Structure formats: structure tokens, C-alpha cells
């Protein structure tokens, strides 16, 4: 029984959407979407990211990380990463994701996030998922809220974006069963 509500079923994607692990062969496709202006603006990517950098990241993924791509009718239209921390933060992972500018608002992000959360909750034993998002990125904010992420802070001048420093919101989601048992936690 999954503690994660099957939200993905509420927003069907038109076409044949496949989620699978990213591989170094996806470097070109991932670089293509991460160089799109909307994807750039919503993430921390820099313009003109070279394919080699993407490939080297994909080739050197720590074994604890997940990198998932969303393929719609054979084309990569989004990706999402779960980056597990180490040491005394092993129960924590950061999430980053982005969708091809031409495919936003079609449930791709929902499908990707649902997959990461399902893996984190049911297989990776991650208690805390955290992320940052620009406060004016309404679609992303509502997506995260739907999955139980809550605001934890507003960080001033966090990132350079389109010619100026902008603030970022930090959000986090504690695994639902952990929240319930928190009062009895040692």
C-alpha cells in the first residue's frame, strides 16, 4: 500500500509517456531541453550548456541518486533528479526537475514528481525531500503543494536570473508516516 496518493491518474497525458532511468546516451536530449529559455529560467542551468557536461554528469551519477527522464512518443520532454545527501543527512534528498518549454502544463511534471516520491517513500527510505523554487513560478509551486511540499523559507537574492538576483523559496515534504510518528520519535 503506497502512502502516496495516485495523483498522476488525475492528469492524463496525451500520447505515450514513458518514465525511465536516464542514461549517458540521453545527454544530447537533456542538454537540448535544459538550454530552452523557460527551462533555464525555472532552474539553475546556464545558457549554452555543452553536451559534454551533461554527459559527464550522467556518467558520474552517485549510486544513491535517481535521474529519471520522461519520454513522450519517443522524445525526451522532461527530467527529474533525486539527489541523496550523506552522513547525518542521509535521510534527506534534494529534488530538481524541468520540462520542455513546449510541454509544460500537460502533466509531465506531475508524472515525474509522482515517480520520484513513490521511489523515495517506498524504496529509498527517505524521510525529507527538499527543493527550492522561484516564488513567481506558480505552476511549479502548485505542483509541489499538491504533493505535500510546504514552504520553509524565503531566501533573498538567492540566484542570478535574467539579469538580476532573485529570491528563492525553500520547500520540503516529510514522509507522511514519519510525520505521524514524530511525537513518538526517540
Amino acid at each position, binding site marked *: 500500500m503506497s502512502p502516496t496518493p495516485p495523483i498522476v491518474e488525475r492528469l492524463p497525458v496525451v500520447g505515450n509517456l514513458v518514465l525511465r532511468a536516464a542514461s549517458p546516451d540521453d545527454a544530447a536530449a537533456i542538454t537540448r531541453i535544459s538550454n530552452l529559455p523557460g527551462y533555464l529560467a525555472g532552474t539553475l542551468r546556464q545558457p549554452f550548456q555543452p553536451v559534454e557536461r551533461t554527459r559527464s554528469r550522467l556518467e558520474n551519477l552517485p549510486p544513491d541518486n535517481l535521474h529519471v527522464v520522461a519520454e513522450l512518443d519517443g522524445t525526451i520532454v522532461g527530467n527529474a533528479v533525486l539527489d541523496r545527501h550523506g552522513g547525518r543527512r542521509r535521510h534527506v534528498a534534494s529534488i530538481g526537475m524541468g520540462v520542455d518549454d513546449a510541454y509544460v502544463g500537460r502533466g509531465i511534471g506531475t508524472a515525474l514528481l509522482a515517480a520520484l516520491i513513490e521511489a523515495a517513500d517506498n524504496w529509498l527510505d527517505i524521510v*525529507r525531500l527538499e527543493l527550492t523554487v522561484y516564488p513567481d513560478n506558480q505552476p511549479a509551486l502548485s505542483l509541489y503543494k499538491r504533493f505535500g511540499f510546504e514552504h520553509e523559507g524565503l*531566501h533573498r537574492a538567492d540566484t542570478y536570473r535574467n539579469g538580476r538576483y532573485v529570491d528563492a523559496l525553500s520547500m520540503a515534504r516529510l514522509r507522511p508516516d514519519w510525520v505521524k510518528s514524530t511525537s513518538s520519535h526517540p
Partner: protein
Amino acid sequence: MNDASPCPPHKPPAAAELILRAVRPDDAEAITRLANLPGYRAGTLRQPFQRIDVTRKWLDALPADGLHIVAELRGEVIGNAGIDRHQGRRRHTAGIGMGVHDDHVGQGVGSALLAALVDAADHWLDIVRLELTVFTDNTPAIRLYERFGFEREGLHRAFAFRNGAYADVFAMARLRPDWAKSADSHP
């Protein structure tokens, strides 16, 4: 003297003999000893029984644009602190981490270390935003950071495992004073 620290340390350094200097490869043993003290551990993210080779590896891999210093009292390292500069679109920001020997807390060592980091960040490294996390019950550290202009930006729940339980931290940050003033006119 310059206007590096908006608030000079309230307490005098542990002694006039307190020396701040750049970290050296042969500090590995002293830093490992610090990191294995229970109080130091509780205030940071260190794990018990940290091995010296872990410290050595960390020292060898310090990036050139970071800044790591130690506080030395009569030849003994009693505290350390560092600035880790972020990259890419967060190059104007840096994370701060620091810790003081359990037997030397409350003697101004932290103030001296933090004053040196803030001065370097403001006047030489062109860092706009300094950020850090601190356990919510670490009142002396929170007061220290507030004295240097750090403000609370958030509360992260269950951020790290500490002494048998997940503990919360505050996220704090300090914007360089001249930048904060000019923020409205920033392009």
C-alpha cells in the same frame, strides 16, 4: 581598520595571542581532533570517530576560490571556519561553516573567526550573500550570527540526525550591506 564587521565582537578574543591563519595540510590531525569533540559534533554535521584521512582528503580537495581558516591559541588549533563559494548562477553566494573547541566556547573565538570571514567576503571576494544553517536550539551561535547581520530566512524540519533524533535548523543569511542598500536600483 575598516568597516568590515558592522558590529565588532562584544567579547575580546580568548587572548591577545589568538592567531587566525589559512588552514594547512598538516592541520589534518588538529582539525580531526576538534571535529570529534562532542560539543563540536552536536553543533555541526560531523559524525563520531571521524577518520584523519577523511579530513586530509577534504583539505586536499579544497577549491581555490573558497577560504578556510583556523584559530590558533598558543600553538593549538581551537577553532576553524570556512567559506564555500557556490558556482554558476549562485556564484555571488557562499555557505559558511564553523566550530570552536568545546573548552574554548564563549571566549570570542567564534566572533574572531566570523569577523575574518565576513571581512574577506565583503571586501575581497565580492560575495553578495552569505548563508548558513544552525540548529534551532544553538542559541550562542544564533546570537553570534545575528550580531554580524545574519537574518533568519527559514526553518527546515528534520534537517539532520543529531544525538538520536532528527533536529530542525534555521536557515540564516546576510546580504552585503552596500548591496542591500542598492537592491532597489539593481538592474
